[in-house]
């Protein structure tokens, strides 16, 4: 089989969530609710197709509730798509949030090993790479401290350092650039550059048109679960601005914007 130029291929992916209109969590709720339907289907993604070439950084933009995070989670294998096919060439590292799964009672070492293994490294590789990870995170002097004493910035740095050291071929970032101080963000930017130079492929979910421009070759705009535009970051930024201004006008004319409510009702 010829090596494909495509690194991530998404074809016709649809996904809907069954959202409870009233939360039925207990038997009592179930008895009270009886057999009345207590949930409705919300289509989050409708027939989304795109592909990302090897070595490319691809941006996904869209407004809140447009389905971009859901799409990323489906590619990452956290949610299952209702329809469609997703293929990827190489190991994926989903970076939905930095420092997920860290245990507060344990020092850096245990957390680094655990996280690296979850992200796909062998335990032996994880131990070998530990010094590198600590050096990159610049947290070497805090390595014996329990993580509960880390600031959120330090956690983010440690998390980021693990993520970029797990040797994934395909990296999926969900708004991770939005955390940390300026220094950290600068470092993220540099790291992205280096990751691109080393031939890695990335998908970047973001609100920030500046980030799209800076890091991505191509980008996609999602609107209401559908692919709106696929093109250069400039084109996507243009469409995004257009979309936002249209919504503003629609709101002034009294058309309410759809609001998604999740979680328990009081």
């Amino acid at each position, binding site marked *: *089989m010829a*090596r*494909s130029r*495509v690194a991530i*291929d998404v074809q016709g992916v649809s996904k809907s969530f*069954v959202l409870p209109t009233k939360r039925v*969590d*207990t038997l*009592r709720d*179930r008895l009270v609710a009886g057999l009345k339907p207590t949930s409705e289907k919300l289509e989050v993604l409708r027939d989304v197709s795109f592909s990302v070439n*090897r*070595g490319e950084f691809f941006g996904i933009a869209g407004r809140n509730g447009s389905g971009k995070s859901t799409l990323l*989670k489906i*590619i*990452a*294998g*956290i*949610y*299952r*798509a209702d329809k469609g*096919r*997703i*293929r*990827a*060439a*190489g190991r*994926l590292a989903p970076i*939905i*949030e930095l420092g*997920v*799964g860290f*245990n507060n*009672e*344990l*020092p850096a070492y*245990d957390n680094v090993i*655990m996280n690296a*293994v*979850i992200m*796909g490294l*062998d335990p032996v590789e994880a131990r070998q790479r530990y010094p*590198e990870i600590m050096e*990159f995170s*610049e947290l070497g*002097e*805090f390595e*014996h*401290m*329990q993580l509960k*004493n880390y600031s959120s910035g330090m956690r983010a740095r440690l998390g980021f350092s693990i993520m970029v050291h797990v*040797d994934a*071929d395909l990296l999926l970032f969900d708004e991770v650039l939005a955390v940390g101080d300026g*220094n950290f963000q600068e*470092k993220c930017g540099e790291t992205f550059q*280096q*990751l691109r130079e*080393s*031939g*890695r*492929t990335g998908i970047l979910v973001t609100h920030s048109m500046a980030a799209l421009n800076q890091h991505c070759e191509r980008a996609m705009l999602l609107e209401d679960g559908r692919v709106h535009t696929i093109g250069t970051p400039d084109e996507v930024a243009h469409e995004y601005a257009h979309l936002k201004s249209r919504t503003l006008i629609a709101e002034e004319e009294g058309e309410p914007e759809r609001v998604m409510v999740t979680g328990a009702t009081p």
Partner: protein
Amino acid sequence: MSEQSAYWVVTGTDGVTRTLPMPGPESSADRDKVRKRRPRWRRAQPQDLRDIEGPSAFGGSPKRFFDLLRLTSMQQYRLQYRTSLLGYVWAVLRPLSLFAVLYFVFSQVIRYGDSIPNFALILLLGIMLYQFFADATGTALSALVRGEPVVRKMHFPRIVIPLSVVVSAAMTAAVNLGVTLGFVVVFGAGFQWTWFLMPLLFVVLAALTAGVAILLSVMFVSIRDVGQIWNVITRVLFYASPILYPLERVPEQFQSIVALNPLAPIIAQARIWVIDPSAPGVIETVGLPTFLGSVAIGVAICGLGLWLFVRQAPRVAELL
């Protein structure tokens, strides 16, 4: 270099107290130094496209599954008693204190225990085995819900979450059984060669516990009442298992009901192998059909748990 004015005094997990500089704004010289430390990344190699499978109970390769199970179990085991003063001692003290109270009531106050040979040892062994089952299932029940961040934001084989609870509880229980054997030597029948068969029985108990644990953990995600119901059931199971009494003491018309509880044959057999090889055998006492019925119930629970978990695993992240 920038001047450091703020410090943290921190006691590390290695017990050493350090004074650490608070990370402050770095000077440009610092930043240049950092910039030079570029990680050595290997070049990404072109690979073939493969289908991405959605989330599942076991997820990915068996090696990754076992690596994660081992790491998570060890982590939980170490964390369990870490923050308490007496640490691991609590794991032994808790069942021992229950034993002490029950022993006092039933042998000094009610004087019922006098009529049963080796009453103290039967009670102690039963409590240790039961405590493993109750602790592991009770903790595993809410494990998926507690592990929400990992389930919703990382690619993680879901079944590892409840299973690691059982494995870490089994490690505690293994030590407790060792302590129990010590008591048997000091107060009772002494060493039996059948002790070497105990690991077999322990594996059966662990398998049953794991089956119940995965069933409960996945049910708890959508029906929170399971927590309350299980609370009641574990209490009933304590009295419905041959812990406070040997199986042959149960009136015959109730014997098969007691023995249908899958824990009962395990605890009864443990008594025979550990304490008293001359005690009447389980099958002799309750009859073969009842024994097989009990085994069937145990297997059915494990099967149901596994089936439901595998079926629900892809959707767990959405249901939480």
